[in-house]
C-alpha cells in the first residue's frame, strides 16, 4: 500500500517542473520523496512476510467506528449551515442516545449542556469564532 502511494505520488509529481540541480524546482523534492516512499514500501512489504497475516487482525470495534465517523461526517456538513450548537446537540443525541442507547433524560442533558456550555465557554468567553447558524441558535 505504501509502495502504491509512493508510485501514485511520483505519477502526480510529473506535472511539476523539476528544475535543475543548482536551481531545484517545485517538483524536485516531491519526486525524491515519492521514490523514497516507493522503496520503503517495498522494504516494508518484504520484511512484513514474517509478521502477522492481515487476515488474522480482528476488527471488533469496526461497526462502532463507522457509526462515529458517519456522525462526524454529518457534523462537517452541518456545522456551517446549522450552526455549532444545533450540530453538536444532534451529534450528541445520536452518539449517546442512538449508538450508546442511554436513557432520554441524560441524553438531553448531555446534548443541551455540552452544546450550549461549550459555545458559551469558547465563543462567548474566549472569543473563539464558531458559526451561530440558523436564526442565531
Amino acid at each position, binding site marked *: 500500500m505504501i509502495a502504491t502511494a509512493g508510485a501514485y505520488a511520483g505519477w502526480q509529481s510529473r506535472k511539476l517542473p523539476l528544475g535543475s540541480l543548482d536551481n531545484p524546482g517545485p517538483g524536485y523534492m516531491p519526486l525524491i520523496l515519492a521514490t523514497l516512499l516507493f522503496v520503503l514500501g517495498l522494504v516494508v512489504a518484504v520484511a512484513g512476510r514474517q509478521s502477522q497475516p492481515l487476515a488474522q487482525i480482528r476488527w471488533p470495534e469496526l461497526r462502532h467506528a463507522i457509526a462515529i465517523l458517519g456522525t462526524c461526517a454529518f457534523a462537517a456538513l452541518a456545522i456551517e449551515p446549522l450552526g455549532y450548537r444545533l450540530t453538536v446537540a444532534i451529534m450528541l443525541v445520536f452518539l449517546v442516545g442512538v449508538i450508546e442507547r442511554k436513557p432520554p433524560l441524560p441524553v438531553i442533558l448531555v446534548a443541551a449542556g*455540552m452544546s450550549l456550555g461549550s459555545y458559551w465557554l469558547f465563543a462567548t468567553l474566549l472569543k473563539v469564532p464558531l458559526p451561530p447558524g440558523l436564526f442565531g441558535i
Partner: protein
Amino acid sequence: MVETFHNLMLGFSVALAPDVLMYAVIGCVIGTLVGMLPGLGPLAGISMLLPATFGMSPVIAIVLLAGVYYGAMYGGSTTSILMRIPGEAASVMTCIDGYAMTQNGRAGAALFIAAVGSFIAGTVSVVALMLLAPWLATFALRFGPPEYSALLCLGLLVLAYMSSGSIPKTLAMAVLGLFLGMIGIDSMSGYSRFSFGINDLSDGLGIVPVAVGLFGVAEILLTAGQEFPPTVQKPKMRELLPTRQECRDSALPIARGTVLGFLIGIIPGSAHIISSFVSYGVERRLSKHPERFGKGAVEGVAGPESANNSAACGAFVPMLALGLPSGPITAVMLAALMVHGVSPGPLMIQNQPELFWGFIASMYIGNVVLLILNLPLVGLFVNLLRVPYSYLYPLVIVFCLLGVYAVAQSVVDVWIMLGMGVLGYGLRKLDFEAAPIVLGLILAPILEQSLRQSLAMSSGSYAILVTRPISATLFAVAALLIAWSLVSLFTKKKDWRKEVGLAEQPGE
C-alpha cells in the same frame, strides 16, 4: 551564571504577575484533566486550546499551553496507576507496575512516587533547559541551510532508530509525512502542488487537523467499542505515603529517569513516549530483582514517570533555541507563538528575554502547582474517571471537532481530521506509528527549503552537505547510526531496543 540568575529573576517577575500565574494554574489543571482522559492526550488538548490563545499575549499563550503539556504528563499517570489505562501514550509503561501496585493495595504510594518523581524530574530538567537553551541558541547562529538539512535528516533517522516499531515502517511514515508537507503552494516558486483545485489546501495541510485526527479521533475509533468498561479505585489520603523501602528504591530510578528523559527529549520524535519505554527497560536491566517488574516494582513507576516529565522539558530546548519543533506538540506551540508574530529561533532569547525567561520561570511554578494538584486533590480528579466512557468519548469527539474547526474556521480542516482519523486507525491496527507522519509534515517545509538553498549555494553540488564541519559531523553521526542498525541485522545480535525492553508491550 550571574547573568542567568538576573535573567531568571526577570522571568519570575513576568511569571508571578497575577494574570500569567492564573493562566499557568489553569493550564496545569486542564493538562491534568486532559492527561487523565483516554483519547485526549496533550497534543489534542493543546490543539483544542490553540484558538483560545489567539486573543492572549504571547507570554500567556505559551505559559498556558506549556502548562497543559506537562500537566498532561502528570495526569496520565493517574489513570495508568488506578485503571491500567494510559491517559496519554507516555504513561503506557507506568500501567505495568503502577496498576500492579494498585492491585497490591499500594495505589496511594504509586501515585505519590509518580508525582514526586515527576516534580523532581520537571524541576531539574528546567534547570538544564535554562542553562542549555541559550548556549545552543548562540551556537545555532553558525547554522546555515546545509547544517539545518543535516540536522533534520539526522533527527528523522534518530526517530526511526529510537522508535519501538520497525525502522523501515517508521521511516516510511516519516517520508509519508514529509510528502504530505509538500501539499500547498511552493514558497520558492509559487507553484500549487497536490491541492487538486481546493483553495483551502493552498496553505498546505494544517498540523492541528492532522495531529488531532491521527491521535484523538483514531484513539476514539479504537477504544469506543470496548465491551467491558474499566473499574476505578479511589485511594485514601492516608494511603498516599510510601514506605521507607519504597522511597529508597525510587531514588536512583528518579535520578536516572531525569537524565535519560532530558537527553532523549532533545532529540526529535515522540521523545516523552520513547523516554518512558527506555527508562523502564533500563530500570529492569539494572535491578537486582528484575522478576519483580510487572508485579508492582516501585522502580517501574518512578523511572518512566520521571523520564517522561523530563523529556517534556527537554523537547523545549530545540524549539526555543533553534526554532525547530522536536515533535507534534512543540510544533503546535511554535504555531501558537508564530500567530503572535514571535519567531522562535536563535535570536528569540536575545530579542525577547521576558518571553523566554518568563516561560522558564512559569515552568518552575507549574511544577509546584502540579505537585499540589496531584497529591491532595487526586481523589477529586478520580471522580472524573467514574464518568462512563459511553458519555465521555462523544464529548471528546466534540472537543476535537471544535478545536480543529476553530483554528481556521475551515470545514476542509474537519474533513482532513476525519481522513487522518481513518488513516491513524488503520495504521494502529497494522502496527504502524503515527507520530513520524506529524513530525515529517512539520519538518517538510524547513527541510525542502534548506536543501534547495544548499544546492543553490553550491551550484548543484551535494558535496556542500559533507564538506562543512557541522553538517559533516551530523551526517557522520547519521551514517554511524545506519551502520549500527545494519550490524545488528547481519550479526543477529539482539537490537538494543529489545535489550532495554523498548520493543515490549505492556502486559507481557
